[in-house]
């Protein structure tokens, strides 16, 4: 063998630490099995090669989804944004707005959080700063009604992209998940293929609960992509490995700060490199 230790218990323990510490815990057992299988087949011959193997293996598994947003064949593209409380939905919408405007597209915002204190004000400030129109309703009004009005406005104004913000909610709150489903249904009734994208915003600091979030949000509104926010912190966001493994939802964007510029299109390889550091 070319230097390096063999896959003994101590090495496996070290490997476990790397996997668990980056929040890949839900898939750690499977990943270690793959490594041991590759080792038996001589695809890996030393511990140095384990990390090279894993970088390729995990990057491949995170690839292959469509990282671009699906556009409507004609008319406005409708993007629904959802996620648990405080994950970064509203700020991610500001970032996506800038992202689309830089591509020369026109954007309309829907202030679909009619519940939380100053939620509408927060998105309105972003709309003003980014110079895009916004559709809002009264605080306490039905968010589905705001969604309806927003689609009407999007069609009337012939905007390219409609971004629909929603209130934070826990996937365990059945009535709120039903409310979210209703919002989605309103969008799909008004425009044939809408929503063209359903983005779940996940906080990179979240542990394995992220997998449960992805499952339940997906069951309710058919999530098409993840936005992994707050990756500028020290959290690695490894839960997306388990999410791709169990629910097959790709990461489309990552959030790396609090300003509209702080959005990047997801790239598996550098993300996985950081995961395995």
């Amino acid at each position, binding site marked *: 063998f070319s230097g390096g230790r063999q896959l003994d218990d101590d090495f496996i323990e070290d490997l476990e*630490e790397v996997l668990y510490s980056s929040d890949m815990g839900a898939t750690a057992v499977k990943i270690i099995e793959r490594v041991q299988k590759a080792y038996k087949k001589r695809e890996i011959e030393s511990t140095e090669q384990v990390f090279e193997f894993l970088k390729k293996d995990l990057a491949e598994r995170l690839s292959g989804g469509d990282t671009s947003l699906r556009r409507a064949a004609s008319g406005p593209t409708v993007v629904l944004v959802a996620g648990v409380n405080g994950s970064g939905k509203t700020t991610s919408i500001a970032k996506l707005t800038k992202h689309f405007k830089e591509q020369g597209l026109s954007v309309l915002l829907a202030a679909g959080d009619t519940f939380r*204190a100053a939620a509408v004000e927060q998105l309105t400030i972003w709309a003003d700063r980014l110079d895009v129109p916004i559709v809002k309703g009264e605080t306490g009004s039905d968010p589905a009604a705001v969604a309806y009005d927003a689609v009407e406005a999007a069609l009337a104004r012939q905007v390219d992209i409609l971004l629909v913000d929603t209130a934070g909610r*826990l996937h365990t709150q059945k009535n709120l998940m039903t409310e979210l489903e209703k919002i989605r249904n309103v969008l799909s009734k008004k425009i044939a293929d809408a929503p063209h994208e359903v983005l779940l915003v996940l906080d990179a600091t979240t542990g394995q609960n992220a997998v449960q979030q992805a499952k339940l949000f997906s069951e309710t509104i058919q999530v098409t992509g993840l936005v992994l926010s707050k990756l*500028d912190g020290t959290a*690695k966001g490894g*839960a997306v490995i388990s999410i791709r493994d169990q629910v097959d939802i790709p990461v489309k964007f990552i959030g790396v700060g609090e300003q509209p510029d702080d959005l990047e299109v997801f790239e598996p390889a550098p993300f996985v490199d950081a995961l395995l550091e």
Partner: protein
Amino acid sequence: SISKSLDSVFSRFRKKGGVLTEENIQEGLREIRQALLEADVNFKVAKGFVKSIQEQAVGAEVLKSVSPGQQLIKIVHDELAVLMGEKAAPIQLNPGLTVIMMVGLQGSGKTTTCGKLAKLLSKQGRKPLLVAADIQRPAAIEQLRVLGKQLEMPVYTEEGGRPPDICQNGVRQASSQGCDVVILDTAGRLHIDDALMQELETVRKKVAVDEILLVCDAMTGQDAVNSAKEFNQRLEVSGVILTKLDGDTRGGAALSIRQVTGKPIKFVGVGEKLDKLEVFHPDRMADRILG
């Protein structure tokens, strides 16, 4: 559940009685470590915890009345509850003015918790003043204003000041408003953002803060130790509030945060409404983490 898996692990020892030995509890300890990791307890914290359980469990007489698995669970549960801290770690309330500062990562629930704490303290006969010291997040000041209005409590705000001065000015005019508790809402920040962490240190220098409460999201994973450690090292927090426990996260971050800061978890947030703040129960948290 952990009790089922430990029972099955120990099913072959049930008839033997005798003593818990290093050999016969190895598999049980692995199950316990797995349960902790599934609950998002930090890897190193889980490892250390299991080691301390092993030291306590080895040599313990297996009681005739319970299975070895149940006995191991009791050792684990009791140790977890002890680590979670003493039951009621109340807010340190002064006879005169008490100043409380909320700090934490972005989106953890600070602003909402300011409102909840104000409501709780007013029920205890206090007169809170909320201070809007987050000047960077769009509509953060407005968010606290709305909560203040809902609670019918004053909110101190300022145009164009820096947070340390806003906090100092807010505290200075608290008693003129007849208030005896000041709750400072600060902007969410990364523990690795040196400038913003220094800003909090500056608040502490300028204002006599009685309580610094670290507000943490209960669904935080392995990173909980990193941020909690840094906030504590730089500010010497006096307590922790764990939010969003109304979800289904096991909340292992609670153990990690306790282990790395040694500070008490004083309250838990269990909902978005302003009455959704409860006193922390260490034994209930232990049950939840073990699943």
